[in-house]
């Protein structure tokens, strides 16, 4: 008898929970169009702004936006990629999903880079795309593209709506999925007929989905084992990543570090989660991170990773990464456990909740010798790299000098948006972050063109804070048309283009690994100042070190947007560097 019952492995007790659990109705309106339902659904989710671009298949929604323009601000981007990146920038600093909207076909495909970026950097965005009418699906109709198929591997979830009645639940699920667990992008594709159909609208928030387990309770057994490892460690080392930022665990990280005396280093996306001035903070990990944190990863005995995913840019070659250490890994995503680095103790949980549970079990410890090792390595890095980066010994200023001066003038309190390349590494190395939620950059995907639209989204999300976009001359030209958004909506973003007339990072690799064969990195630039001025943005070019300080003051004092082009040293390199595919211990200082 027993076997008969138990062999029925697929038996599912549907009474456990129904497919989706929805809350009580919060908005109801009878006899409205699907398009109006889209707008009301967004409002029900507390959305204040949308970044988008209209077109044929999404026109009914744009028509509905017109009626709600006093409650929902739409920012017209100049290319849909900008809409996705702006939504990302907004999400990163506002700590809630950003929303972007595009029409079918090319509108939707232009979002793809931003969606992929949001996927790999766990950024919650909700993308709404128009689609041809249901009767035209699969007929190669005008501007028909299989957006669901294209976006499938780069969305956390996506869904095609073909009936108006599906709209509220689809959007409710979209927001729930995008913002819960490990956040990510979702896409809702809405056929044109669904936008025009009339139905009785009722909005309920999504509370639960039967097949989706976004977050786990903290496993106290695992916490206990982690505490034992940390309490008995000789040389513990804590690595923090974006999980700390996403869960808002900055205070807990600091408390754990202070109580247990553990040195803390950050990944690229974890930056600003801990002030660089905190005595337990020892620096920045990764390919162009600090010397000490990289080298000493291979000397610690307990490696305590919190909300980070052991990206290859952090680990270098895995078979020589922290092999001596016992690894404790806190991550909300079970798929990250043991993906790259085998763990001794896995804690699948929200970083904040896990650290709160851990804190009382930790003993008060101090590791003066171990901490001193970091200072020794930092002193070496200062002598061999940093002092040279700051030395005013070249005809043109160096990127590091610009960032250093900016950091001093803003006291590390600004939101720094960066693009991808040398300027990004220099900005993240030398900006002395002293305020949380201040680092907006494209980490995992490394998307050139990310910065300008992301900085616009960030400024809209946090108008109370100074937002400074630091961009290279190459990446700027990938999305510089978004200056139009700054012009049209008077968004006071401060832009610094560090111009070396090169695709600098690629040039650096060509210099170091391709025998100085500079293949297609010498970029001829337009007159950026004239371009900014054409968009009505006050602009200035700095060509001498002596002008820099005053120009930065002008930028920071400006109440409107401001554009500053700084001509920087042409063949500047970013060091330290862990060459791709090598061991972190083989980090090069020159």
């Amino acid at each position: 008898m027993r076997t008969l019952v138990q062999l029925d492995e697929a038996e599912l007790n549907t009474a456990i929970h129904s497919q989706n659990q929805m809350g009580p109705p919060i908005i109801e309106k009878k006899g409205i169009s699907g398009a109006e339902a889209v707008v009301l659904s967004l409002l029900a989710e507390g959305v204040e702004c949308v970044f988008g671009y209209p077109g044929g298949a999404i026109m009914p929604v744009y028509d509905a936006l017109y009626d709600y323009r006093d409650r929902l601000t739409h920012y017209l981007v100049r290319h849909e990629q900008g809409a996705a990146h702006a939504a990302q920038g907004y999400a990163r600093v506002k700590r809630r999903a950003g929303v972007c909207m595009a029409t079918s076909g090319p509108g939707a495909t232009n979002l793809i880079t931003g969606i992929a970026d949001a996927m790999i950097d766990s950024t919650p965005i909700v993308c709404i795309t128009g689609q041809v009418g249901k009767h035209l699906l699969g007929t190669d109709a005008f501007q028909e593209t299989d957006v669901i198929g294209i976006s499938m591997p780069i969305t956390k979830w996506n869904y095609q709506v073909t009936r108006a009645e599906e709209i509220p639940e689809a959007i409710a699920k979209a927001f729930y999925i995008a913002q819960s667990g490990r956040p990510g992008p979702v896409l809702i594709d809405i056929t044109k007929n669904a936008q025009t159909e009339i139905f009785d609208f009722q909005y309920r928030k999504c509370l639960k989905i039967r097949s989706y387990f976004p977050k786990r309770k903290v496993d106290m057994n695992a916490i206990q084992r982690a505490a034992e490892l940390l309490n008995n460690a000789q040389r513990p080392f804590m690595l923090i990543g974006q999980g700390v930022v996403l869960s808002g665990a900055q205070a807990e990280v600091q408390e754990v570090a202070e109580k247990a005396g553990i040195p803390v280093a950050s990944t690229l996306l974890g930056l600003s989660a801990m002030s660089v001035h905190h005595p337990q903070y020892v620096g920045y990990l990764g390919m162009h991170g600090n010397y000490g944190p990289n080298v000493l990863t291979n000397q610690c005995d307990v490696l305590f990773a919190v909300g980070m995913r052991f990206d290859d840019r952090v680990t270098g070659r895995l078979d020589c990464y922290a092999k001596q250490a016992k690894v404790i890994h806190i991550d909300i995503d079970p798929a990250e456990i043991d993906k790259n680095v085998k763990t001794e103790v896995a804690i699948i949980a929200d970083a904040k909740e896990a650290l709160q549970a851990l804190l009382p079990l930790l003993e008060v410890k101090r590791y003066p010798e171990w901490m001193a090792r970091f200072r020794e390595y930092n002193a070496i890095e200062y002598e061999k790299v940093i002092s040279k980066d700051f030395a005013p010994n070249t005809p043109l200023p160096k990127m590091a000098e610009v960032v250093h001066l900016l950091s001093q003038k803003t006291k590390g309190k600004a939101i720094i948006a960066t693009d991808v390349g040398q300027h990004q590494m220099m900005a993240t190395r030398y900006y002395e972050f002293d305020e949380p939620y201040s680092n907006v950059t494209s980490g995992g995907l490394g998307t050139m063109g990310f910065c300008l639209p992301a900085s616009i989204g960030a400024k809209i999300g946090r108008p109370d804070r100074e937002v400074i976009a630091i961009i290279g001359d190459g990446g700027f030209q990938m999305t510089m048309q978004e200056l139009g958004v700054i012009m049209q909506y008077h968004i006071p973003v401060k832009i610094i283009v560090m111009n070396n007339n090169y695709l600098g990072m690629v040039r650096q690799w060509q210099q170091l690994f391709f025998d100085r064969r500079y293949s297609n990195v010498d970029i001829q630039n337009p007159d950026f100042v004239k371009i900014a001025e054409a968009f009505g943005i006050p602009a200035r070019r700095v060509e001498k070190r002596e002008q820099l300080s005053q120009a930065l003051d002008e930028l920071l004092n400006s109440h409107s947007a401001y554009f500053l082009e700084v001509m920087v040293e042409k063949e500047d390199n970013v060091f330290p560097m862990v060459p791709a595919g090598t061991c972190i211990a083989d980090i090069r200082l020159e």
Partner: protein
Amino acid sequence: MQPLEGNQQRYTISIFTEDKVGLLSRITAIFTRRKINIDSLTVSETENRGISRFTVVIRTTPDRIGVIVRQIEKQVEVLKAFYYTDDQVVYQELALYKLPTEVFASSKAVEKILRDNHARVITIEPEFIVIEKTGHEEETTKLFNELKPYGVLSFVRSGRIAIAKPMKLLKVHLQELENISVF
């Protein structure tokens, strides 16, 4: 059957999902992205309405299979995924063979082959006969090879379906997940 390379193992992955459009693509993309060929794939609704079961056979290494299955489970509409080695499952395939009717009339040999292989005739038409054989891939292939000289007009094989030997019920797995989760 595809040969195993290096320290590869053959794994049967059972995936329970919501019955939703596009989920097949989401799941196969997890293999495609890692350049893993799917040796066999079957999808069907379970006895629970709205819940589908995918049975996927792949070859990969023991250190990668867990990573892959966790990526599958991560999909929002996947309820739970399990992986098994061949000795942890009872599995079966179905094969159909179409032969000209005259080969039965002209020789007793075919009849003997069918008896020896425990195959059965499921349709007799004036021009052709359809034979059915269930078993492991090796067994259905063996029958095909034996029938080949008599002119197999058509041969089709289903993917593997499998039932796991471990006794724990899906609903228990789900209840456990539910208990350790917060929503």
